[in-house]
């Protein structure tokens, strides 16, 4: 518990009363002689957007990979809902409820919106049609996809039968985010969701992140874009040289402060 108190003291946020849904303790990851993570701890609380920022090589990607099962930390512990978890591959993290949206818009362009939302977890028809003929429940999945998009505030993307390749970059990202947020996931990790998008499309994705928070789904947002981070994040985890330099809030610090901490020009 000392870590939590230390973290809160560093961040200046009064969060002692809440229990984190995802917590990482003293994660260490080395690549040969390069230390990627040097004892990093992180807490994610229910219903918050936690941004992770840092310069290139600061360890934010490694940190996220350890949390989502893409890398296995050498040392340290990860707890999900208070229980220790050991992810060996990304599928393990997904099965446990941690969904990741990757930078490169991981959607299948030729499939329609509903098919993409249910890709890899299609639902079958009831009765013999499903069990013997393995028919998927197209109607049901389309309806659920519609409901899910509406619940996420993407209600204007009404036609779930449109192939994803006909959507704009922002809408594709919305489909990817919706897929991550649907189906009762506990944590959504977004890796540079606005990096490939224009101004208007970025705004759409930021709105979507706020909608996720309103639904109580905690989000970890990795981003280089300070204005975006400061617009949506509740707390900001700053990585520097493989360590957590600070955890701040948009209220307690300015963008200039955050950049200063990131680059080592200032201390938190």
């Amino acid at each position, binding site marked *: 518990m000392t870590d939590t108190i230390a973290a809160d003291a560093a961040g200046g946020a009064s969060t002692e009363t809440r229990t984190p849904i995802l917590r990482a303790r003293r994660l260490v990851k080395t690549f040969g002689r390069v230390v990627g993570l040097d004892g990093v701890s992180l807490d994610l609380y229910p219903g918050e957007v936690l941004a992770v920022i840092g310069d290139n090589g600061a360890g934010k990607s490694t940190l996220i990979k350890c949390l989502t099962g893409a890398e296995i930390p050498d040392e340290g512990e990860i707890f999900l809902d208070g229980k220790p978890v050991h992810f060996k591959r990304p599928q393990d993290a997904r099965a446990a409820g941690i969904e990741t949206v990757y930078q490169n*818009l991981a959607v299948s*362009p*030729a499939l329609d919106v509903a098919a993409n939302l249910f*890709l890899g977890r299609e639902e079958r028809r009831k009765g013999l049609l499903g069990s013997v003929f*393995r028919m998927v429940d197209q109607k049901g999945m389309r309806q659920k996809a519609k409901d899910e998009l509406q619940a996420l*505030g*993407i209600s*204007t993307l009404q036609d779930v039968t449109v192939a994803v390749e006909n*959507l704009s970059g922002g809408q594709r990202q919305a489909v990817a985010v919706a897929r991550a947020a649907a189906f009762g996931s506990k944590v959504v990790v977004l890796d540079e969701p606005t990096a490939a998008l224009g101004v*208007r499309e970025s705004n759409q994705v930021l709105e979507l992140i706020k909608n996720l928070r309103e639904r109580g789904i905690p989000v970890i947002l990795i981003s280089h874009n300070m204005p975006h981070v400061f617009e949506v994040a509740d707390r900001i985890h700053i990585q520097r040289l493989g360590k957590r330099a600070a955890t701040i809030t948009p209220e307690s610090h300015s963008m200039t402060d955050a950049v200063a901490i990131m680059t080592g020009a200032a201390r938190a």
Partner: protein
Amino acid sequence: MSQHTTEPPTSALDLAEEFLDRTTPLSRIRNTLHRYPAISPAIVLVVSVIVFGLLNDRFLNPANLSLITQQVAVVGTLAIAQTLIILTAGIDLSVGAVMVLSSMVIAQTTVQAGLPAVVGLFLGLLVGLGAGALNGFLVTRLKLPPFIVTLGTLNIFVALTLLYSGGATVRGGEMPALLTWTGSTFDIAGVNFTVGVVMMLLLYVAIAFILAKTAWGRHVYAVGDDKESARLAGIRVNRVLMSVYLAAGAILAIGAWIQIGRANAASPNAGFDLNLDSITAVVIGGTSLFGGRGTVWGTLLGALIVGVFRNGLSLAGLDVLWQTFAVGVLIIVAVSVDQWIRKVRK
């Protein structure tokens, strides 16, 4: 920027229609073709049937139409297997060779070794599955490009066929009736159909259903569309690829049976050229060589188009070389149309 103040925040995620360029009639046609890739081969087939029907009275004769379906049966069956593999962004140069090897095994084990016909067919199926497993293994485990894998196995299967058969043809008359059953005909409304043609059509129905209505079918499209995205969505890409090559192998074994009935013989020298014919049918049928887009119905139309062109041109009295010439033109036109359609994806 003023629109931001007037619109509620959620409407920022706008209707998809806004991003579809529907500005000109031409782009509207393109969008429709993009959504239903089987439309263009269907139009080509209807137009070519009408044109050849006008050119020659005998073309629309039931006997002639029956002949076209019989000529299409074998390549049409191989093209189903080819479609599955091309949908995964692969290509199979060995389909003809696998079919011939399987047909020789079916014929030799029943005629020379005297095994029951059912056992011979079963062994033929095993050959198809084994060939599919080898191709699939090399593609998924050794990560070799399907083109190279099947170029290699094409030669291997051709050599195995000749070594195994000693270059000898097995006549249909020597075989049990079950093996040549696929060549037997029956009458529907004055048109002769062979059992092989019906088998081919049933295979089309089955595979079309599986591709469109099952999770596996969607995964085949997703893998061909973008392998990495499919993997990140939790699809076991290698397992899907392996199952596609196995399914293709099984279909090729059925093709072998149809071929025996059609030729009333099993010949080690027949059908190696069907590799390219099957790819032709798939491509003309609107399935993209880049994977993830197309249907088996398009492939059936493609196979019929090739059959109609060859038959129609020969009835018109043109040299067989001009038939080949026309098929070549068809391929290039089909791929050009595909490229143009794909420009929708910006």
